[in-house]
């Protein structure tokens, strides 16, 4: 992936670039708002990582200017302003995702992957998702595995669907929380793990292989093996 990183803190930028490069992406760095806007409009990127407080041009204004030119490049806002209303402000300004500093590299990578795929026309709107022998029919709200129908709650269906859409990619706990639950809040204990473990038991009968894998320290991934 081609990624543009707009971040004025040199040390943090170096860390992000190292992490993103290691994950196999190409990254360009830019530490000035105006400069970044010029680059973003002239070249095509798969995703932009944008800091909010920048010299010369504020991150949200940059984003507004970019969206005004009908540029739909996925933008992940990365900001020290982490409160819920700031987050809402960022998403309303045209951001596709919002992360508060400080963050874990793995979380940033997971979100970038998910963002960049969002643009790809891969089964995003398909109502039938299939992972190995697991079939998820979103139109009729049914989940079957090897022909066996699995009874899931609506929330569990949404978790499975989100994991399935991101099959092969890491999904972090916060990503699940933001995308599956309709509330913006911080659970004090890690309840998401309990939901996943319950779901795992429902989906995988005794002899069947587990489809939802734990990625240590990061989150979950749905894949065949």
């Amino acid at each position, binding site marked *: 992936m081609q990624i543009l990183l707009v971040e004025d803190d040199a*040390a943090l930028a170096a*860390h992000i670039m190292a992490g993103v490069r290691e994950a196999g992406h190409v990254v360009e760095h830019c530490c000035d708002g105006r400069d970044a806007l010029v680059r973003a409009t002239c070249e095509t990127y798969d995703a932009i990582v944008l800091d909010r407080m920048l010299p010369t041009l504020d991150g949200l204004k940059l984003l507004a200017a970019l969206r005004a030119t009908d540029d739909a490049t996925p933008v992940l806002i990365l900001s*020290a302003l982490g*409160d819920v209303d700031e987050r809402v402000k960022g998403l309303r300004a045209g951001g596709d995702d919002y992360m508060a500093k400080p963050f*874990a590299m793995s979380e940033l990578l997971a979100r970038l992957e998910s963002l960049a795929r969002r643009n790809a026309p891969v089964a995003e709107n398909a109502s039938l998702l299939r992972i190995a022998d697991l079939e998820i029919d979103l139109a009729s709200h049914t989940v079957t595995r090897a022909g066996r129908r699995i009874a899931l709650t609506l929330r569990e269906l949404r978790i499975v669907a989100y994991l399935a859409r991101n099959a092969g990619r890491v999904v972090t706990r916060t990503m699940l929380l933001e995308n599956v639950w309709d*509330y913006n*809040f911080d659970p004090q204990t890690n309840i998401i793990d309990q939901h996943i473990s319950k779901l795992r038991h429902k989906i995988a009968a005794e002899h069947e292989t587990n489809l939802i894998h734990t990625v240590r*320290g990061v989150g979950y991934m749905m894949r065949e093996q």
Partner: protein
Amino acid sequence: MTRLLRSFSFRLTLTYAGLFCLSVALLISAGYWLRVTLPMDRARQLVDDEYHQFRAAYLARGMEETRIALDRRASHAGSRKAFHALLRPDGHVVSANLPSWPAKPLGQLTIIEADTFVDGTEIDHNALVSDHLLPGGARLMIGRDVEDITDDAETLRTAAIWIFGVTVMLGLSGGWLMSLAIGRRIEAVTLAARQVMDGDLAGRVQVRGTNDDFDRLGETLNLMLSRIQSLFSAVQSVSDNAAHELRTPLARLIGRLETLEQIAGDDPAMRIAAGAAIVEANRLQQILSALMRISRLENGRHPLELQRTDVIQLLEDIVEFYQPEAERLGMELVVSARRPLVADLDLDLVFQALSNLLDNALKHGAGKGRRIELAAARTREGLHLSVQDDGPGLDPGDGERVTQQFYRGRSSACLPGDGLGLSMVAAIAHAHGAALEFAASEPGLRVSLVFP
């Protein structure tokens, strides 16, 4: 009415009206004394003297001489018209210019009505009469006209009643108007103070521009509020900046630790140490953002996004979220509420608050077979949302301290947490203008949010 009576300005005016009434009373008494008591005493003295004079004359010179002297006195034009009556012991009138008299002598100074007719016109007279039986059985009445004095007395009495009545009425209505006017000015100060207390430091006392006492008080208070506001925003920006500036280094720290974890490669001890350090750094970040959020909520800088909410849906969602954890702990979650129940709430914040409460209930009331009830009801006070567990309840003495930042009860020392959960709930309640109440409920604890 009691509010009016309790009003300081009203009581002040009432006291003033009382004092004013007293001075009016003094003035009227002085007038009464000068115009009535004093002349009456003089007239009394005069009549008494004259009586004794004529009595002596009667005893010395007899009936006829006295009659002549009395008639002369009657025809003499004095400052006060003279009245008399001389009766023989058998009741025959020797001489009299009094129109009537009582059947028996009264033996003392009495006021008798003595109207006279001159050319067919009635002239009102009141005679002060000394009326005694003389030795030998004759009856002598000597009097003087005191009509002017009795008139004055009557006028003064009537005037006193009116003056008192009007004074009291003016005093009461003046007091009412004054307490209204002053009350309005004081209300402006109270209003501004409340606004500031509710977190809007921009609240100011309304000044009329008349430069009166209240304006000066208001201006002084406004200056004080401006000063407080500027100091507060200075402190705020320092702490905001501090929290902000801490985020970036913290981000770098986590970055470095992640690099360390990768470099560690196959050394498991290093990896575990680095992982634990990352967990701690994340916790630090969580505390930092919770603190910032609480402070933003408390001083009203977090705008509420109120939306019409199905309260029961909200409770069911939160129960659903915590269901797997409750199942793991062998506890039961129950929603007790009846549809329809809608309210205007900031969904995210109220969900956060209930989540913190439920989290506490699960942590502190943990135990197989235990039960947590989430209830919602609308009463006259407003919308009650409560979380009730059957755990050990609050430690006695913890009381309201549980909402203080970083406060942790004695029994929670060994449980995870940072002492910010209930502070956050309190801040969210404050932002909504809701009350946060703790009530012991045998057994356990019920925490309620009461939205007005």
